[in-house]
């Protein structure tokens, strides 16, 4: 019958002790030598008694060895019928779910706390003495191997489990499987390999369903999973929070500001509910608020919250940071979102053009730069500082410290000037390029294409429109002009385009002409790069009447403000996703809101927590703010069924056994383990100890019997005979 041991090393030590009686026996034989004269009588007696003596000694020695053996079996906790033979060392791959879903509150505890208890309970079933090891993997995206390769230092692993805290990221199943595969590859011995996913089944189910590719199935001896929590809970999370305008210019145009918030509702959605929304600044001052009333079954909602921007102070770089906060619900970690809002006292605009008289010419021609100036500052400066730069000296004159560079005579720029423009773009300056009205050459466009290869079409020409074409009143949501969508629709009717640059497709159009060709293309560069906009129409009445139309002012203002704002702001990153690291970023610091105190350089996994990061350049200046948003989609609180999870587990785990761990409390988990190991172990070990006791008693009785027999025989002989003889 196959058998195994819970503590095979103890058994081995105990079994080795069997040699003790034998050694004692041998030592006693070797201990003393007697030179004896009457050997002939001793030999004669020995011949007579040898068989009996040998038999008695063998019986006693066997009983003593059995005594030790049974004690060893008892101490080693023999188990019969376990596995295919003797128990092998177990390797437990413990995946601890510290994702955002683990922060969900259940009663007076959290999912994470319960997962920790389950994990520690399973950890307690391991025995490092017999070679058990454990690997610990943090499941929060990006999944991190905390203890890998597997270690037998269970105390340290336990401590690490106890220190785990919930993040704002999702369960990174693909990452987890990658680390699990490493454990398998690195395993040098064929011990039992168990995978335990100490997780809320909700996040796990969400992670499985989010996998795009069918994973390679990992072979396991068994899988332990927590039973899904059957009680539904209501949770509302913030999917996104985006300001209507991405740049706040003081003393500029007074435009209404609001934050567009996308909410997701999950769990107990069968009834009506309401959600409080507050917007506060870094001082804790309320900047806006609202209440969302959810209808039965409603799961998502987009809501705009108007905010006050007066007196906002920059908290990260030149951006103010606002915090959108929801009321309490099942999971607090998806109830907050941070909204950076770049602030400028004035926009600094450089216009690169040929030096020409800005006055209206005799033919009534107005130079493009003048049209642009008029649009940027129709009523005085309006918070816009404009600098004119001679195109032929652009390489030297274009310096850092501008927010936008308009290139109105691109044909005039030499290579050095283009290099300078490109460098500014790399440093986050918005570049707007309009066709050159004085030159037919389009060679400059190659440089533009070089700045953003692939974003613009291959074939570029200047097309004349006969008859003139108008503008498409529709604005795509991704366009920089989306903020003036309603005005745009109203003002496009009076615009006619006579000539335009034939821009290819491939980039986001800011707007389109009625023939479908783009009015301009916008390209968001790599992280940290400035917005690049190429217009198809020059600011010249020979190209279109747009400069003379009211739309021009609104369009230029919106183009600049949104472009500058987006150039400075990095797109929000979902917690757990890789952080953008532009080449100029030397360090990243977390901004503690409400205290405005930057913390030290973030360690690995910082992006697993929602917040605002300050991106600093080599000079230590914070040049951009990076918002990390909690993964609200991963915090859904819908009820999932065991069968549903089990079916999904089979997609990536190949295991003959899947055991559910009671999630109600750790005591129940413990009892499951006791049923699996403890009962049988104790029963057999007890029998072994009883057998040891029986052997001990029998040995004692037999030894006493043999001795008594000797003494009796001696008494029978009597000292009298010997005395008389002597």
């Amino acid at each position: 019958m196959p058998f195994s041991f819970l503590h095979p090393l103890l058994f081995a030590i105990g079994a080795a002790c069997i040699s003790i009686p034998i050694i004692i026996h041998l030592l006693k034989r070797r201990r003393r030598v007697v030179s004896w004269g009457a050997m002939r009588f001793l030999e004669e007696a020995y011949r007579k008694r040898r068989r009996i003596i040998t038999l008695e000694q063998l019986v006693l020695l066997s009983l003593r060895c059995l005594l030790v053996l049974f004690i060893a079996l008892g101490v080693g906790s023999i188990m019969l019928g376990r596995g295919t033979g003797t128990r092998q060392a177990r390797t437990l791959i413990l995946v601890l779910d510290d994702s955002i879903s683990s922060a969900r509150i259940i009663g007076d505890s959290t999912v994470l706390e319960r997962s920790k208890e389950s994990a520690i309970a399973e950890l307690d079933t391991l025995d490092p003495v017999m070679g058990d090891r454990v690997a610990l993997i943090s499941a929060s995206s990006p999944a991190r191997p905390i203890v890998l390769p597997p270690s037998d230092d269970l105390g340290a692993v336990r401590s690490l489990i106890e220190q785990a805290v919930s993040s704002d990221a999702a369960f990174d199943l693909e990452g987890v499987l990658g680390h699990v595969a490493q454990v398998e590859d690195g395993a040098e011995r064929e011990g039992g390999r168990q995978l335990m996913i100490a997780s809320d089944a909700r996040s796990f189910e969400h992670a499985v369903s989010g996998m795009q590719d069918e994973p390679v199935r990992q072979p396991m001896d068994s899988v332990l999973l927590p039973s899904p929590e059957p009680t539904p809970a209501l949770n509302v999370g913030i999917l996104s929070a985006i300001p209507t305008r991405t740049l706040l210019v003081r003393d500029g145009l007074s435009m209404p500001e609001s934050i567009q918030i996308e909410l997701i509702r999950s769990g107990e959605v069968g009834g009506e509910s309401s959600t409080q929304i507050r917007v506060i600044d870094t001082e804790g001052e309320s900047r806006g608020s609202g209440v969302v009333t959810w209808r039965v079954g409603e799961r998502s909602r987009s809501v705009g919250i108007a905010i006050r921007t007066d007196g906002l102070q920059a908290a990260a770089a030149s951006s103010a940071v606002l915090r959108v906060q929801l009321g309490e619900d099942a999971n607090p970690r998806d109830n907050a979102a941070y909204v950076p809002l770049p602030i400028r006292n004035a926009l600094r605009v450089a216009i690169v053009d040929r030096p020409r008289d800005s006055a209206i010419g005799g033919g009534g021609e107005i130079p493009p730069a003048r049209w642009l100036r008029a649009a940027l500052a129709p009523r005085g400066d309006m918070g816009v500082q404009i600098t004119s730069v001679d195109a032929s000296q652009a390489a030297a004159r274009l310096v850092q410290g501008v927010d936008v560079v308009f290139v109105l005579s691109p044909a005039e720029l030499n290579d050095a000037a283009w290099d300078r423009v490109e460098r500014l773009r790399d440093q986050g300056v918005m570049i707007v390029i309009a066709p050159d009205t004085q030159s037919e050459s389009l060679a400059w466009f190659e440089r533009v294409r070089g700045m953003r290869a692939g974003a613009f079409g291959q074939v570029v020409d200047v097309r004349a429109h006969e008859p003139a074409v108008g503008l498409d009143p529709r604005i795509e949501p991704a366009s920089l002009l989306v903020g003036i969508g309603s005005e745009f629709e109203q003002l496009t009717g009076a615009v006619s385009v006579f000539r335009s640059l034939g821009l290819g497709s491939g980039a986001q159009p800011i707007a389109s002409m009625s023939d479908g060709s783009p009015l301009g293309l916008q390209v968001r560069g790599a992280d940290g790069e400035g917005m690049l906009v190429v217009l198809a129409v020059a600011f010249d009445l020979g190209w279109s009447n747009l400069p003379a139309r009211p739309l021009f002012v609104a369009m230029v203002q919106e183009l600049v403000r949104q472009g500058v704002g987006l150039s400075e702001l990095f797109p929000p990153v979902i917690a757990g996703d890789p952080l953008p690291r532009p080449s100029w970023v030397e360090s990243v610091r977390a901004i503690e809101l409400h205290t405005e105190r930057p913390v030290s350089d973030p360690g690995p996994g910082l992006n697993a927590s929602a917040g605002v990061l300050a991106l600093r350049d080599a000079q230590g200046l914070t040049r951009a703010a990076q918002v990390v948003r909690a993964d609200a989609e991963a915090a859904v609180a819908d009820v999932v069924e065991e069968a549903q999870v089990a079916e999904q587990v089979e997609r990536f785990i190949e295991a003959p056994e899947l055991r559910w761990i009671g999630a109600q409390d750790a005591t129940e988990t413990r009892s499951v383990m006791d049923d699996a190991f403890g009962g049988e172990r104790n029963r057999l070990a007890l029998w072994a100890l009883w057998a040891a006791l029986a052997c001990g008693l029998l040995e004692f009785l037999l030894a006493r019997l043999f001795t008594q027999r000797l003494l009796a025989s001696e008494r029978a002989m009597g000292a009298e005979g010997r005395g008389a003889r002597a």
Partner: protein
Amino acid sequence: MDEHVVNPVETSQMPPVAASERFDPHLYLHPQTLSRLSTMELRAKMIVEGVMAGQHRSPYTGVSVEFAQHRPYVAGDDIRHLDWKVYARTDKLQVKQYQQETTLDLVLLVDSSGSMRFGSRLFSDASGSARDMAPDGRPNWSKFDHATATAAAMAYITINQGDRVGLAVYADELRAMVERSARKSSWKQIVDALATHPIDRETDILRVMDQTLAKISNKCLIVIISDFFEDPEHIRSAFAKVKHRGHDLIALQVLDKAELSFEFEDPAAFEGLESEATIRIDPRALRKAYLESINNHIDLVSQHARSFGFDHKVVSTHKWLGPTLAKFVARRNAASTLRGS
């Protein structure tokens, strides 16, 4: 229990031999006392002194020069021995015959085989601070020590009585021999032979007896001092040869107390002194069988001796020599009387 058995505790409590104690024959003849005496000669003299001092308590008559009987005078008899009083009363010439006139040669056969090297008593037990080792470096009082002391004492007594004494030290053959002589100086030779001979080899009493008897022409009293650890049949044959040649014999079987009691407790390896194989045993388990075996052997030796009219006595190395020597003297007297008649 014999009152003269002295255990180690008693020994350690014994005071050094004082002058007053020298008159106690028990002390003189006790092996503990003998072990303190460095030379064989001194040892033998002490034994004899003890024996003589204890005569008054002996059940046997003494060996003084006493009248035994008359016989008719024949030509050639020494006229000094004529009994003039008888002649005056009966007018017959009668010669007075005394016991000492009947000389009886004593031949001592001392076993020097390996088994005689055994002895469980320590020299230090007996001698206290006086001596820890025998002159040859042995730490124990062996059966051979006891045998030689006995032999020397017997030789001393015999020579002092004017009889001849010879010595043969044997093992598997005769290894040393001192021709019979009544000279005082011969006793010194006997003592030297006993003191210097090595103790080893196995025993072959048949061969030794043949060799011994071949050298003896007249009737002798042969005293074999040995442990008799050999085949009983050989012993019986040896006794038979002695009887056939008309000699008298005393078999003194010298045994150690440990050999007679075998009171070992712990398992040990027992190695023989005569090239027997070593055996590892638990003594408690074999005690009964061993004692049966050795007692049977002693009984057989005794039985064989008595069957030929010889004396046999077990001599323990832990006991005093008085009874042994007294028996020897009595036996000599009896033999002398028999011879005189």
